[in-house]
């Protein structure tokens, strides 16, 4: 028991013997040596991807003179309503599945990081 108290005291003394070291420009020196970002951040990449998709769609629409959109709407209007519902449900399933796959791919990273908090 006495030995344990002695050890605790020694540990405490050791911890207290180390003064806090002032940053004194250390962080700035480290940050100045970091490589500059080599690629656009993810949020930027998302914006670029959406922008390119929109631009491609606009070009396709302009080249076809808008006909393919009109034809697609006309064709859809002839379909029975239940087929449209099934089609919408199927689209929802596909988008949902993609979202789940994306989430699972990201989960280990997030899970590992969250362990840090414990």
């Amino acid at each position, binding site marked *: 028991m006495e030995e344990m108290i002695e050890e605790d005291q020694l540990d405490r003394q050791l911890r207290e013997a180390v003064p806090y070291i002032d940053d004194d420009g250390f962080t700035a*020196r480290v940050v100045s040596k970091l490589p500059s970002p080599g690629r656009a951040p993810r949020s930027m990449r998302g914006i670029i991807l959406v922008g390119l998709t929109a631009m491609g769609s606009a070009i396709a629409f302009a080249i076809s003179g808008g006909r393919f959109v009109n034809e697609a709407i006309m064709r859809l209007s002839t379909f029975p309503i239940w087929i449209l519902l099934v089609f919408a449900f199927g689209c929802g399933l596909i988008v949902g599945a993609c979202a789940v796959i994306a989430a699972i791919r990201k989960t280990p990273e997030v899970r590992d990081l969250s362990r*840090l908090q414990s």
Partner: protein
Amino acid sequence: MPLTDADLVARVLLDDDHHAFAELVRNHQSSVRGLLRNLTRTDVALADDLAQETFLRVYKNLRSFRGEARFSTWLYRIAYNCFREEARKRKELVGIDEERLQTEQDPQTVDPALRHDLMHALSLLPLPERSAVLLCCQNGLSHDEAARVLDIPLGTVKTNVLRGREKLKRTLAAWGPS
């Protein structure tokens, strides 16, 4: 509310956020520099160079950090590896210097002004014991975490801590008033 290490690491990984990384450096610079100063026996310039190298390696390898250990444990491991590589380059750090200090600075002949100077007593310990005592007793790592940092078996860490503590106590007792 201040951001946790996990939040900061996530920001660096997701957006390559240099501000978040700077915050990580600010949060840990004192403990890393302190550890390296003790390992290099208060060679401040060398310790700071190694600390800088440590944080640059942390930045480069942050993606390999899986969060299985605390961020500080991972950080100390990189710091210790930096020190070990440097020590291999400068043999005198762990070889000649070690012997010289062991013989020249015998606890019995130390200047009385250095009594109760724990840091000095610590610097007299051999490197394996010093590293184990620094990590476990001073930086508050568990034996298991210290074993990961030092890349040695758990039993060896426990032995080194025990021996280091004993030697510290003996050294301090020898310096103390008779």
